[in-house]
């Protein structure tokens, strides 16, 4: 964790505020476009937010947060109770949505899903790539950075206020897509589903803030051998591996608890993992907030 001071809170759209967090002890850990951080709130909740500022600014991070009507206490707390000048712990940035080199990009953003796209777009333009941003939202007033993006990038930014104009037809965009272009999409689940239906999987990169709905066989109990601590932890059918490890005092960090953020990644040296996350764990790794074991035993580096 890095200690920061909340420098500014600005309203950037209806129900959306932007936070500027300045490093309390000098420069903050570097990041690349697409990265997100965990923000530890004073009410003990931790939430993930994409960095939407400038990666060249090493003194501060910027995030934007929509007040969720069904908030469990994260976005509501940020909107109603956070105070400038107070310190907040912020994780080192993680990136599950990195911008890969390409001559052309199509960016698709829905509502608050614009946040990781803002620095990606800037980096792509800087690199001299051909870019198009299709940005949708209920109305322009609810869409953070819409005016700013339009004035900076002109007609490379296409804004769709779905309340008035309906949704853009992704199949038309897919048909016209340059074969060398990459597509980056961040927004609500319905938008990601629409993109996954028409764009080639190898060229489409998505960032989710909610897990997909998945069906699994009933959860079975299993044992986890933690090689570094020498402990063996039993995971019951009713509890997550993350909770079992933490209750045993092993202190695994976590964020979303839904398999979308990547904070609880573990190195697995033996056993067969049942991956239940939306990130696609690399070989030998797992996200223990949702994933479980197919074998009766897992060996982890913990």
């Amino acid at each position, binding site marked *: 964790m890095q200690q920061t001071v909340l420098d500014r809170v600005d309203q950037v759209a209806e129900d959306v505020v932007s936070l500027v967090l300045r490093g309390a002890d000098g420069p903050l850990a570097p990041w690349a476009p697409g990265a997100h951080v965990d923000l530890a709130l*004073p*009410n*003990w909740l931790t939430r993930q937010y994409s960095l939407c500022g400038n990666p060249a600014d090493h003194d501060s991070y910027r995030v934007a947060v929509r007040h969720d009507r069904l908030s*469990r*206490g994260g976005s*509501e*707390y940020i909107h*109603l109770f956070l105070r400038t000048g107070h310190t907040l712990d912020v994780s080192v940035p993680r990136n599950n949505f990195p911008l890969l080199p390409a001559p052309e990009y199509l960016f698709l953003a829905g509502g608050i899903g614009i946040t990781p796209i803002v620095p990606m777009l800037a980096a792509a333009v800087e690199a001299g790539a051909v870019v198009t941003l299709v940005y949708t939202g209920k109305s322009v007033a609810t869409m953070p950075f819409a005016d700013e993006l339009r004035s900076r990038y002109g007609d490379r930014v296409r804004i769709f206020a779905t309340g008035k104009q309906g949704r853009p037809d992704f199949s038309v965009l897919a048909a016209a897509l340059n074969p060398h272009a990459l597509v980056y999409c961040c927004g609500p689940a319905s938008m990601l589903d629409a993109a996954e239906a028409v764009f080639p999987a190898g060229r489409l990169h998505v960032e989710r803030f909610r897990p997909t709905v998945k069906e699994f066989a009933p959860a079975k109990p299993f044992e986890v051998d933690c090689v570094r601590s020498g402990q063996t932890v039993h995971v019951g059918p*009713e*509890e997550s591996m993350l909770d079992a490890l933490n209750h045993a005092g092993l202190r695994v960090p976590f964020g979303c608890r839904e398999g979308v953020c990547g904070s609880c990644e573990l190195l697995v040296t033996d056993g067969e993992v049942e991956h239940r996350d939306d990130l696609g764990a690399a070989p030998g790794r797992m996200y223990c907030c949702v994933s479980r074991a197919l074998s009766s035993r897992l060996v982890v580096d913990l």
Partner: protein
Amino acid sequence: MTSSNVAIRPRRVAPGEVRARLGEPDAMIKKKKLGHIDRHSRRFIAHAPFLAMATCDATGFPDCTPRGDYPGFVKVLDERTLAIPDRPGNKLADSFRNLAENDGIGLMFMIPGVREVLRVNGHAYPTDEPEVLARMRTEAKEAELAIVVDVVEAFFHCGRALIRSRLWDPASQALAEEIPSAGEVAAEQMGVDVDPKVLENMLEAGYRQLY
């Protein structure tokens, strides 16, 4: 206790006499009772991980129970309505049974380190409204039920009781060493011939499953 040490029945002070002994409250005190949740009460509730909840049955027989979770676990639905999640407990459902007979409810919110407490009194009923329960999801589990409170009065209660009790003074935690463990108490009170250590371990195992 044996019959030889039954205390003398303390004498009862008549209601009118109580007022005479205490005197009249300050006019200012009456003003602090609000009929709604103002921004200060709202901030207090958003930071409170604990409350005591009092209910009564139809005859007026009372019950008081602790509720706790992460700060802000009680949701402010609007300035006259709160929602308290129901988490797994002893399944006795005393509060729900009481509320079915008598909808009066008294709440006392506490924040570690804060000497003043927030008190909210009103009328309450159970709900399973999905949009309310969705806001109470923790450890990927939703609450089964919540208690909706229609606020009648909300006010801050001064800190004298908490100051005198040194409730938030870390040194006060030494008191915990002077009472028997929950396992020892349970073994004796339930009259079972089990090693208190076994009961203690059962209790600890149960505490692992908080949701």
